């Protein structure tokens, strides 16, 4: 039996801590944004690299035009391409400027973080599978312009399948999320782009599946422990479902079929359920959810039994007194 005790009304210490720290950031002395050792310039670059200005024009990286009065606030080539003036004053080949797209993940992330310090950027420095595999920003983003949102090289899911080819195959299975149909995007579930939890499927601690399937989100008066983890880390929803794709209906990992119903018996081996003399032959092949209806969580029974069984006096009265 669960231990019963009062739930204290607690203040949220992590939130308060974070608020204080954000205020501290505003008060702290900032470092001036500058190119790494090079004077900020663009005009001299375009003398040789003509055409680059027009490729950047439709992006937030666009260079200031001659008539612009906000040149200091806009991008300069040397903000990303660090180097020194010998590149354009002396020998360009002997003094190459840095090309961030050819840098490693950590090096390019450091350059991009000069401006981009959003959750996704922060995550590249925390636990991120892409940075751990040395996949740099330019592997996904085309900084000099793209017709796709966020300057992605290609739209999802094609962008992701470029490396995760084995996952593409899973989405060919009969029961799957509609990713190939353009209805669900990889990044809608893999919030690892903006979050750091292991498995990258948790959004501020909340199970990411509930972003769409809110009807299965707690609290229920009686929770199914398999989903009680509030995230998919401890498998949670993934105990029973394979979101990428399955050969079984409802994207189930194991068959929900008699006589053994492996989906349920993978965890539950319940006495008297295999050969129940009281239910006689009617028991044979009867699916578990014929009685245990509200398997994601119930407000009626801690065995997730259906209300109709209660009205027929099967439980709480009659044979099954709980």
């Amino acid at each position, binding site marked *: 039996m669960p231990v019963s005790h009062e739930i204290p009304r607690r203040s949220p210490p992590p939130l308060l801590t974070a608020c204080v720290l*954000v205020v501290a950031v505003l008060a702290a002395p900032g470092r001036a944004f500058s190119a790494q050792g090079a004077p900020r310039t663009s005009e001299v670059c375009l003398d040789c690299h003509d055409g680059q200005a027009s490729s950047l024009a439709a992006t937030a990286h666009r260079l200031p035009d001659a008539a612009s009065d906000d040149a200091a606030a806009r991008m300069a080539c040397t903000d990303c391409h660090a180097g020194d003036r010998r590149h354009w004053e002396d020998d360009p080949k002997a003094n190459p400027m840095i090309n961030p797209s050819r840098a490693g993940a950590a090096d390019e992330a450091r350059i991009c973080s000069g401006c981009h310090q959003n959750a996704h950027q922060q995550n590249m420095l925390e636990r991120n599978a892409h940075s751990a595999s040395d996949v740099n920003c330019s592997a996904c983003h085309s900084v000099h312009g793209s017709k796709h949102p966020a300057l992605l090289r290609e739209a999802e899911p094609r962008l992701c399948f470029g490396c995760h080819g084995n996952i593409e195959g899973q989405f060919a299975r009969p029961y799957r999320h509609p990713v190939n149909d353009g*209805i669900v995007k990889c990044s809608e579930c893999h919030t690892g782009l903006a979050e750091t939890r292991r498995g990258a499927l948790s959004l501020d601690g909340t199970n990411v599946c509930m972003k769409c399937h809110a009807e299965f989100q707690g609290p229920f008066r009686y929770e199914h422990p398999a989903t009680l983890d509030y995230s998919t880390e401890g498998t949670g929803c993934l105990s029973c479902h394979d979101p990428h794709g399955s050969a079984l209906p409802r994207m189930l990992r194991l068959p929900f079929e008699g006589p053994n119903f492996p989906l349920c018996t993978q965890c539950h081996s319940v006495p008297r359920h295999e050969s129940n003399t009281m239910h006689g032959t009617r028991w044979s092949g009867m699916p578990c959810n014929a009685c245990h209806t509200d398997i994601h969580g119930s407000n009626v029974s801690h065995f997730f039994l259906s209300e109709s069984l209660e009205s027929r006096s099967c439980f709480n009265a009659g044979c099954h007194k709980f």
Partner: protein
Amino acid sequence: MRTGSLAALVVTLVGTFAVSASWAGMLEGTVRLGGIFVDEEGAPSTVQETYNLYDGFSVSQIHLGGLVDPRNYFLIDLRDLNLDSRQGELVYRRPGVLKLTAGYDRHRQVFSPDRGVDARREDWKAGAEVTAARWLNLSGSFNQLGRVGDRLAYPAGSVSLLGSEYDNSLKTGEVTAEVRRGRHGGAISYRTSLYTDELNATSDRTGQVVSARLYTPCKFYDKWTHLLRGAYGVHKATDGGLDYKLADFQYTGVIQTTPALQLKYGFNGRRVDDESTRLKTDRFCNDLDATYTYPNGHVSAGYGYETNDDDRSLTSAQSWRTGTSYHRGKILSAKVDYAGRVKKDQEELTLLKDVEASRVSARLQVRPVADLVLGAGYVKRTRDLPDIGVQTDGDIVNAFGRWSRSGWGALSGDYSVTTDSYTGRAGDFDTRTLLATGRADVERIRNLRLSGGVTWLDIGRDLDIEKSLVFVEGAYSLFAGYRLEAKYNAYNYDDYILLNRYYTANVVQINVAYDFHTKGETK
């Protein structure tokens, strides 16, 4: 009426931009008109790819994009305007200042052979992002997901006690304020959700989460960066009055002593206070990772320890991972990873008790000549629950190749074999999945682009299912800006164990497309 209004709006926009000589910038777009012809037999519920197909005339796409001023960028993309599979996306962006987005998507799920039993989803979304100053970014978004239609009992033939219809909606919203200054940055977000079910009020739920994050270098040692996150939220079942509260705190410290060596320490503490179970669940995780990067690759290793205490049981888990990669320019790249995790149930009170899991993956890719890439991969996963006698194993072996040459086209193929086995006390379950995909794109013929591809899936052993998807498509340039596009898809599905689970469909889609591009100058 809705379709007519949208079309009128688009025509007005195009006309305005096209005839006006007083704007500076450019406009480009594509209009596609055509039709879809579907010939099918069997149970369409078996092939998801055809759920959203509607027979008949179609305003397939109106796509407009351009620059005005030229600092204002906009995009309008509308698909299947006159059909129930319609989608739309609008974007307005003034780079570095403002971004507005809106979207709509409608699709259906089919449950019965005659398409008479189905459910429909509608997704509305809108968002705004304002860069108020170089150091301040404000953003907000709103989503509404609605689902109406038939609900089918599972397994087929049983009577569902959950009802026979869907009529629910989920509304979510989020606002974020983000600041940054030099190497310091942070943000505060508020997220809210509201789920309502018109047919079952006990399902109604609300949620609110406030979160914050911070990114700052150490004051005394600038090669050490602190990253912090915190969140606090409440989820509530409105009808029952139950709630659970969730507090989460994360700290990551990254030390980069040299460009080659990076050390990371991560801590995560979380409490879930669940009023329904009257339990408080506390979880603490500690992770330490080191990565050494050299010009031709990297080596990494890490260790983690976590505890989970839910007032009833105490479990702890140790995890470790290691990996290395090697590359030689674009000619060769190889990567191997291993990760393992052992969870111990300290008091043997949980249902599953101890759990051991591991994962090994390896990948090799070579580029013998500039146009050709060949590769192979292997993944092995195991999960063992010795106390309840359950073991699961999974292997994936795949090989792939891609050839492409500018002006000629591309050829690609991928073949994989996946085996999954489950052994439990009640029985075993084994499947072996063979998957082959191939695709060819031809660019060599003047005014004609051709593509074709096949996906073939064979799921065997305890199941016996075959599925194939074939497509051939071509686009022929008729004259300035006009194209004739045709696409043929064939879908096949056969379940050799379950009767009446077969499906075959031939789908032809024909469109006439018009591409335009105009450029305006300031008067």
